[in-house]
């Protein structure tokens, strides 16, 4: 049981890691970015590229990935967001679906369909604690996730830049009238989110491998985590991610492995019915 929970928590951390950048973008532009899973995938693939094709060390590869991803963030903004900034969010959401197809298939064309992996920063040792075993890399995942979680909570609740982002997402025109450099803020967000994706990619690749479809897989999981937790809330994402990760493992182990995903989706639907705002979502309604 403890083994299952530990593994579940680490899965949850990966979901949350994927979600952080997603929430960042959501909180800045008020739209779901469906391409974010693929962006995380690219974060990993850029590292793989540097290691495999340029023969660079892991550390250098990571730096390369961060830089390349900053570029991808800029691309994401200027291609799939900026031209549509004055249109209904629906258009932005759909553009992100288009971008996700574009990126997924580009990865397929560039790196082929085979799954690949990159090494972990901490090697592939195992940690034994009592009867529980886990790869050292999972420990790294826990630590990094916790770190970014705290950072992001701080960012949104304590810094004025976080507040400016929220304002931007809620009413861009008004945000401009407040003197917020809206376009720059959004560009910054996309870049930041892409850099986070690079970290997520490096954390994910050693355990879950990189393949062109991996982005789709994790973004769906991250979505469920986000909805369970409450849209836009960093706490919610973290809680939702851990909850989902642990539930999945426990269900597969003790209930049914065949309908494991159906159960995750049912949990999602149930949460939506019982708690439409998720665990941590704030209600923002219309005042008449």
């Amino acid at each position, binding site marked *: 049981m403890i083994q299952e929970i530990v*593994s*579940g928590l680490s899965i949850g951390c990966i979901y949350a890691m994927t979600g952080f950048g997603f929430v960042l973008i959501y909180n800045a532009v008020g739209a779901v970015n469906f391409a974010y899973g693929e962006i995380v995938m690219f974060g990993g693939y850029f590292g793989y590229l540097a290691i495999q094709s340029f023969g660079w060390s892991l550390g250098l590869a990571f730096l390369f990935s961060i830089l390349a991803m900053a570029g991808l963030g800029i691309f994401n903004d200027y291609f799939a967001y900026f031209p549509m900034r004055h249109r209904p969010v629906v258009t932005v959401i759909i553009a992100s679906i288009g971008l996700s197809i574009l990126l997924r298939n580009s990865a397929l064309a560039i790196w082929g369909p085979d799954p690949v992996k990159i090494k972990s920063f901490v090697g592939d040792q195992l940690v034994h604690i009592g009867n529980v075993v886990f790869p050292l890399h999972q420990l790294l995942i826990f630590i990094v996730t916790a770190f970014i979680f705290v950072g992001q909570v701080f960012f949104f609740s304590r810094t004025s830049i976080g507040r400016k982002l929220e304002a931007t997402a809620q009413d861009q025109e008004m945000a401009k009238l407040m003197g917020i450099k809206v376009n720059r803020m959004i560009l910054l967000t996309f870049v930041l989110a892409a850099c986070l994706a690079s970290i997520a990619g490096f954390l994910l690749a050693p355990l879950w491998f990189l393949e062109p479809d991996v982005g789709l897989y994790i973004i769906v999981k991250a979505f469920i985590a986000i909805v369970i937790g409450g849209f836009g809330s960093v706490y919610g994402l973290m809680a939702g991610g851990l909850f989902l990760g642990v539930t999945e493992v426990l269900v597969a182990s003790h209930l049914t492995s065949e309908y494991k995903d159906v159960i995750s989706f049912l949990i999602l639907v149930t949460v939506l019915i019982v708690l439409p705002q998720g665990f941590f979502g704030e209600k923002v309604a219309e005042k008449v």
Partner: protein
Amino acid sequence: AILFFSTAAFARIDVGVIGSMTSGLALLGQRQINSAILAAEEWNAKGGINGEKTKLAIEDSGKSTTQAMTALDRVLAENVCAILGPIYSFQLFAMFPEINKEGVPLLSTSGTRKLTQMGNRWYFRLYPHDGITKRAYTLFAVEELGCTRPALMCVTTEYGKSGYKIIMDVLKSKGIKPVAVTWHEKSDKDMTGQLERIRRAHPSCIISQAHPPDTAQIIRQQYELGINIPHIASSAASMPTVHKLVGKYMEGVYVEAAAIPNYDPDPKIQAWTKKYVKKFRTRPDSFALLYYDTANFLFNAIKAVGPDRKKIRDWLEKNSYKGLAGRYKFDKEHNGAFFAIIVQYHMKNGKAIPTVVKKYDFTPE
């Protein structure tokens, strides 16, 4: 990535090739299309079939039935004399009625048992179907490894499900019941839940039936979690890609395969593999090797009877072919390959090297 393929403009013999070049299914599809290209180029370099060049009409069947159907339409529009088909059974099933109506031979390297049980006179399978390979590795587990308490881990796709049935049948014939059975999605990234369930059942070996990435995940996590019992994996685990992912945990793993192109000591296969790698910059898998044999078998047929659909079919039914991987001869259901090997992997200098531990041949006499 794949290369575009075109031959001289005065090509005469049209052969259709349908396979997945996009989406996640491209993992297998691309390699097979490569093989077809390689075979055709070789024939053309030697002056063609009876002096006429072969032209391949290559179409992507993507990941859906609809796409496979339009691919078929496009191939048929080229008036092909035969088709080298996709590996995925759901696409093949969808193509069957058209194939029958049109009367065009369709050859593929799929393992799904049911394909040849539908009485389709135009479809030919040139891969040992699950009934052969699953039987081989289940028998191997029980007879050679003495595993009486097996646990099964299967993927929820048709591949996993039909394999599961055959494994269960073989086990039943031996009077054995698996102590645990788990399922997972092809895209699943973590098997801890399934493996913990298996651990609680105290099995003496694990038989898995899954696709490449999930197989890698299963093997790695099994040993990471310290479940130190033999693992008998399906042919996905013979792929070099999988070895890279699993790393040192490949040590001792048994794998069922139709062929092992990358490590077969046979010099002919070695030469072929080299050529393939050089040309496509990716390693072939067993499907690719057998697809290459399939293409050659077909070209031989065309050579013998010309590009006539019906004659090709009849010729294929009657003749046999000795390819790189083995001998092909069709039974009444049009199954053409009955060989299977079991290999065991050992780690040498960080690489997983297979050694053949048992060969099975179920060719009906």
